[in-house]
């Protein structure tokens, strides 16, 4: 399918386009954060608890930090962790699923048992344990999210490989004497990219939610500004200065919503037959 028709089908879903617009804005905020807010978002700029829409666009927090700067730098953190964690998840899940689906038999059995074990474990509690053990940092957060989210991807890729494995084009490759690795990565994988892309886009949203929850619980990287951390820091002042919690939460809500909408739009565009009711 060519790119233009793909775009036209994506544009047919109004909610998908809305999501894309919000996402582009969040992306721009994240990219321009160092230009508009060159100072460290942890820097104390003024008196604490200045209300929004005064001297500072979103006011200052309990320590006198600029809230708008925190939101902008937090966008960088959220998007970066969302993308990195999703990339790591996709790599682990795709390799596991591809090997299980391609080789079948004992390898499949063993890998799927392993996947089942990881699916049984409560994901968020597992993530908490991992970050606590690896000690909080960006790297630990990415690792923890990837470790708890790969099983569904592995199952998806395995299913696709199981059906594609016996198709004629794969059998033709076998006859040509092509190596296993080349068949897996060059021939079969490109044919199951669209469900992987759709699931991957939704994974970014889940990863951002998980990261914010970890940061809220105090398990984020203490040197990096994050929306979850801002909500956690503001909760003590909910009674008097509720916007300290409300604003970062709205940022998370909008970003995750936008990604979900884009994911659904992609799904409709890539799998027109599977369009939901």
């Amino acid at each position, binding site marked *: 399918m060519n790119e233009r028709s793909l775009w036209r089908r994506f544009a047919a879903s109004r*909610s998908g386009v809305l999501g894309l617009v919000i996402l582009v804005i969040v992306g721009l905020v994240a990219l321009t954060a160092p230009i508009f807010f060159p100072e460290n978002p942890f820097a104390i700029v003024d008196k604490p608890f200045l209300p929004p829409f005064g001297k500072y666009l979103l006011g200052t927090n309990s320590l006198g930090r600029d809230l708008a700067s925190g939101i902008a730098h937090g966008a960088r953190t959220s998007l970066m962790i969302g993308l990195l964690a999703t990339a790591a998840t996709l790599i682990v899940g795709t390799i596991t699923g591809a090997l299980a689906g391609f080789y079948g038999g004992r390898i499949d059995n063993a890998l799927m*048992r392993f996947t*089942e*074990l990881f*699916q*049984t*474990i*409560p*994901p*968020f*509690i*597992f*993530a*908490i*344990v*991992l970050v*606590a*053990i*690896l*000690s909080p940092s960006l790297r630990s957060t990415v690792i923890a999210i990837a470790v708890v989210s790969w099983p569904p991807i592995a199952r998806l890729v395995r299913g696709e490989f199981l059906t594609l494995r016996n198709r004629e084009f794969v059998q033709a490759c076998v006859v040509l004497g092509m190596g296993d690795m080349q068949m897996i990565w060059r021939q079969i994988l490109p044919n199951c990219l669209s469900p992987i892309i759709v699931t991957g886009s939704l994974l970014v*949203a889940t990863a951002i*939610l998980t990261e*914010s*929850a970890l940061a*809220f*619980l*105090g*398990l984020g990287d203490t040197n990096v500004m994050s929306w*979850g951390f801002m*909500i956690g820091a503001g*909760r003590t002042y*909910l*009674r008097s200065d*509720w916007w300290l*919690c*409300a604003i970062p*939460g709205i940022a*998370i*809500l*909008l970003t*995750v*919503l936008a990604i*979900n*909408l884009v994911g659904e739009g992609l799904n409709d565009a890539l799998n027109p037959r599977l369009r*939901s*009711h």
Partner: protein
Amino acid sequence: MSRLRLVALRLAQAVPILLGIVVLNFLLLHLAPGDAVDVLAGEAGGAPAEYLALLRERFGLDQPLFLQLFYYIKSVAFLDFGYSFRQGAPVLQLILDRLGPTLLLMTTALFLSAGGGVLLGVVAAMRARRWADSVISVLAVISYATPLFWIGLMLILVFSIKLDWLPTTGMEDVTAFYEGWDRVLDIARHLVLPARTLSLFYLATYTRLMRAAMLDQAGMDYVTTARAKGLTERRVTLRHILPNAFLPVLTIIGVQIGSLLGGSVVVESVFAWPGLGLLAYQSLFARDLNLLLGIFFFCACLVVLVNLAIDIAYGLLDPRTQRS
């Protein structure tokens, strides 16, 4: 008899998973900084030196790794998860003390989300593509994107701080010394906001799932047959389509029970609800890794148990699955 055998079979299948969880717990223990005993005794000291020496001997830390694993499995099999010096009590006792509130919160959230999801899903399916359907769909999409902890804080802000209708945190008003029904009522009032918060995401999931399943089932032959018999539309929907459409929801409840437990960590720490989640949160701050690992292990076992129960319930609801 066949039902008993089904239960026995499922139990046997759960054993390797439980063993896997124990091994994983053991590996995590070793991954942590310091040796396993430092972690077991609550990191950064707190435990007397004699106890540490005793533990080192008991877990055979001078012996090969697989022997250590064997000792570890043995102690877990006897439900010995060690002692928390930070809390001054055995880990098992701490966990059991906190289990009740968590189960209360989780079952309430589960009934709210499953009940509400079925109801809203049926309404959305019956009104497919009309305004009620659209409103429900939009609300579901927004619920998907809302962080649990944030919606919890916003509910506290609106219903406790601004409107002053409901208590902000805790499970009961301990200073009031309520007894009997007054106490039940007091706990119920405290339960409203945390249960509502925890159920929101799942309510959205079950609503969408129920809607899709209802629309799927509506096209089946048996529905046409039921209509041909002259049954009313209401009876066809409620007695014929609904029970069949509920099965996928039941499956997803089993799949998501682990994430519900994870959600309760966040919700309990927002509402200071004295359950396992709050205990996990407190153990994080005390750097009490062994207690955290104990909770982790317990939660994983709970997921296995609930899935066992759902498998059996599935067999009862759908006789076709029993034969296979």
